[in-house]
């Protein structure tokens, strides 16, 4: 038996009991009534007192009952707890999984809520420090919530209320689940006892109590001792339809054309017919019905694999836009039912032409749909500071017979010279070459016919292994694609003026294709699509300006940039669309998608295979080790009060 709040009970008793006695012994205020004679009444009272048995006792019975009821209530107030556990105090680390799969609603209201509930029951059943006890036998616990990262909600304490508040404060996230950080943090904390652990030494290992659905990525990398971790499995069902991948990109050829690729997975055992809806900026553009096959059961060596189907949409859309793909039927896990992609407007390039004078190339480039073309002398280019490129970046730098000294990160189209430092050698020069083969399917050479290309003089190219050869002379590659240091180099080994290419229609086509391709290489739309918990980073925010981030739940967060003008918003914990308003700039969108097959696979795992051992789920939920006695006491008080009332009424009945 323990007392949770003994002093409250004592205090209340000190006030209430004397008050009741005082009330009871106060003289009853009687109503006055005039009668003709008290003669008979006095006799009746005498008779009553003489004849009624236990008269005095009955008078006191009411007081006794009242006192008993009051005592029951006061004891209930003191919070007695019948403790079924014995032994010295333990230390526990409560680990609560808050990854995306814990949002599944196969247990009502959700797995996370259920995990929190069970964790609370667990905390409730911890033994608390007792003012009455001689030895401190209290259990200490700490609370850690984890998805990819661990978050300490509460350090070691025996204060159950603090633990409860910490558990309540855990919010759902859409991240992936990785346990290793949480385990590391837990062990680190367990070695340094909490601030209120008092004089106790950190004897014994803190036991970890894990509330999870068992879908954790990195179990194989964690070693646990036996009995170190107890796993409480949350969740029941595996049925889930997820959008596991989604990509929207503009066609290389036609920038208005948007291709959307969607991959859907079915984790259930029944094939599922679903409608997939495609929308841009909130307007529904297409709905397609797909049937997703059921999962394929594996054997002993292999786990089952989900049934998958791919859907592609094609549509035209100019300008910026947000593509949303949604699986229309709600299921257990909502966060993988939709995916977003942000479309950039078709790029308008700014091109830097480094040449000593090449009217053919310049006019060909000017014929392409580019924003601007800046000619520049090679000497001037070499003189430019690399920092100048970060301020006004050129999407594509065209190098005409010039190998620059330094190569800022960009996309290059190089004619007749090989930039140094990209692992491309030029062992010598060749003469009178014709193209023997070219990759007409490659976007750069699309529609370009190089049959009649004759080159008087060219450099022989010796390419690294990962280079992509687009066109070949008999003895050397003619056009090649090399990626180095984050830059893309499209190398043309010969000088245009030393060939008949300017007279070929394929030259203009090549220029156009090359610029579009290189632009697409750079744009890519990559930074607009983030994984969960990946920060939104916005560079070049004007000083003093604040960035407003509108979250998927329509709340807005103001982010102040650091002195360097970079604003970071790390709070992308939920999937959805984040809108970012930078002062004096158009609104930007960032799509945060789950796109994680492991999280969408919500089937709760019965066991967790760690590096060292396998931990099975507890066969049943958390059991109460402590029985709070107050409800029974309150009930007793109620019954006593009723009995007292009945007796009083019986006595007063006429």
């Amino acid at each position, binding site marked *: 038996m323990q007392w949770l709040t003994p002093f409250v009970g004592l205090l209340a008793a000190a006030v209430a009991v004397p008050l009741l006695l005082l009330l009871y012994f106060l003289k009853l205020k009687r109503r*006055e009534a*005039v*009668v*003709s004679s008290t003669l008979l009444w006095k006799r*009746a009272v005498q008779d009553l007192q003489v004849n009624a048995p236990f008269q005095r006792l009955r008078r006191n019975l009411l007081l006794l009952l009242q006192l008993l009821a009051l005592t029951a209530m006061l004891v209930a107030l003191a919070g007695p707890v019948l403790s079924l556990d014995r032994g010295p105090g333990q230390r526990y680390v409560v680990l609560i999984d808050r990854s995306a799969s814990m949002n599944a609603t196969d247990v009502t209201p959700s797995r996370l809520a259920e995990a929190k509930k069970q964790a609370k029951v667990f905390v409730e059943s911890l033994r608390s420090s007792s003012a009455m006890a001689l030895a401190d036998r209290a259990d200490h616990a700490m609370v850690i919530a984890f998805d990819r990262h661990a978050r300490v909600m509460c350090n070691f304490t025996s204060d159950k209320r603090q633990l409860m508040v910490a558990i309540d404060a855990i919010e759902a996230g859409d991240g992936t689940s990785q346990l290793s950080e949480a385990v590391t943090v837990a062990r680190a904390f367990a070695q340094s006892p909490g601030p209120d652990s008092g004089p106790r030494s950190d004897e014994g290992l803190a036991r970890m109590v894990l509330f999870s659905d068992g879908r954790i990525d990195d179990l194989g990398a964690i070693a646990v001792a036996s009995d170190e971790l107890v796993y409480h499995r949350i969740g029941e069902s595996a049925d889930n339809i997820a959008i596991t991948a989604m990509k929207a990109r503009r066609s290389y050829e036609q920038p208005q054309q948007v291709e959307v690729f969607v991959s859907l997975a079915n984790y259930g055992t029944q094939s599922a017919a679903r409608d997939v809806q495609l929308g841009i900026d909130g307007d529904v553009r297409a709905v397609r019905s797909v049937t997703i096959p059921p999962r394929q059961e594996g054997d002993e060596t292999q786990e089952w694999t989900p049934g998958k189907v791919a859907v592609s949409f094609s549509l035209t859309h100019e300008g910026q836009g947000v593509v949303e793909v949604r699986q229309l039927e709600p299921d257990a896990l909502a966060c993988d039912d939709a995916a977003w992609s942000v479309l950039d407007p078709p790029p308008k390039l700014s091109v830097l032409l480094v040449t000593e004078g090449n009217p053919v190339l310049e006019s060909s480039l000017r014929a392409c749909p580019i924003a601007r073309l800046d000619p520049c002398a090679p000497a001037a280019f070499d003189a430019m500071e690399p920092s100048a490129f970060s301020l006004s970046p050129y999407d594509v730098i065209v190098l005409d017979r010039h190998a620059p000294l330094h190569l800022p990160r960009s996309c290059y189209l190089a004619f007749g010279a090989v930039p140094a430092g990209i692992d491309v050698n030029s062992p010598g020069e060749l003469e009178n070459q014709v193209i023997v083969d070219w990759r007409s399917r490659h976007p750069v050479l699309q529609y370009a016919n190089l049959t009649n290309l004759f080159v008087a003089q060219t450099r022989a190219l010796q390419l690294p292994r990962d280079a992509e050869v687009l066109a070949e002379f008999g003895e050397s590659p003619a056009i090649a694609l090399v990626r180095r240091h984050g830059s893309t180099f499209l190398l043309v080994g010969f000088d245009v003026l030393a060939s008949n290419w300017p007279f070929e229609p394929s030259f203009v086509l090549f220029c156009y294709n090359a610029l579009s391709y290189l632009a697409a290489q750079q744009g890519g739309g990559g930074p607009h699509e983030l994984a969960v918990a990946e920060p939104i980073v916005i560079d070049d925010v004007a000083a003093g300006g604040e960035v407003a981030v509108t979250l998927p739940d329509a709340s807005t967060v103001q982010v102040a940039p650091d002195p360097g003008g970079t604003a970071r918003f790390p709070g992308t914990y939920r999937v959805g669309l984040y809108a970012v308003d930078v002062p004096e700039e158009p609104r930007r969108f960032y799509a945060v998608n789950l796109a994680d097959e492991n999280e969408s696979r919500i089937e709760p795992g019965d066991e967790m295979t760690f590096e060292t051992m396998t931990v099975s789920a507890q066969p049943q939920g958390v059991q109460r080790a402590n029985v709070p006695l107050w409800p029974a006491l309150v009930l007793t008080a109620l019954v006593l009060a009723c009995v007292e009332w009945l007796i009083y009424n019986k006595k007063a009945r*006429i």
Partner: protein
Amino acid sequence: MARLDSLDVLSRKILQGKMQGERRSKKRGQSVEFADHRPYVAGDDLRFVDWSVYGRLDQLFLKLFLAEQDLTVHLLTDVSMSMSVGDPSKAQFVKRLSAALGYVSLVNNNRVTISLFADGVRVRLANMRGRAYLPQMAEMLLTADCGGFSDFEKACRDVESRRIGSGITVVLSDFLFKQGYEAALRRLIGARYDLYVIQVLSPQEIEPKLVGDLKLLDIEDADVAEITVSSALLKYYRRNLAAYCAELNEFCTRRGAVYVRANSTDSVESLVLNYLRRVRLLA
């Protein structure tokens, strides 16, 4: 007055022709009603010698006649404070009853004395006879107020010392006397007087409708009784009341008095016309 009048009418209807006042006395005396003969002894009044018997028997006999005495009716009416309690009030009831009885007695040429008593006799109207006294009696009864505590014995002593002749005494009271009624009633019971005891109780006394924790105040002596009304208490109260009345009844019956118990809700008319005739107070 209207009620008394209606009572008057009602009483007259029933009592017409009943010769109430001139009733036979047990004493032989001068009257027209023959009682007996007895032999003549020297000194007897010759006027009562029955000469026709002397003619037949040649002996002197005296004719004996019943003396016709007038009846003295003593109404002893309680007007102590305790009588003012009750709804309808007991005082009203006993005054009406006294009025009715007084009326009947006066109309029938009886000598009527009405004494209103509380702590001793407060008002007395003595030796009324004949209808002429009706207004006086009515005025006395109407103007009398309740007041004072009851001292029944003192009143009885007073009445006993003043009454002469023979007759009937009617006591109208609630008989809730703290000092007891036995000694007082014993004074009134004598050879020459018939005693009628009419106990009037209010319905509140018979069936109290009290609830809760009460402090009962005695209206006469401000005595206090603290009670908590309960079913048991009320049971004992009723039992006590019944015992008290039974005791009074037995006391009266044993001494040849007649006990009548009345509720102040009863109608005076029916009481007078039915019940009192049945107990032969009225005929």
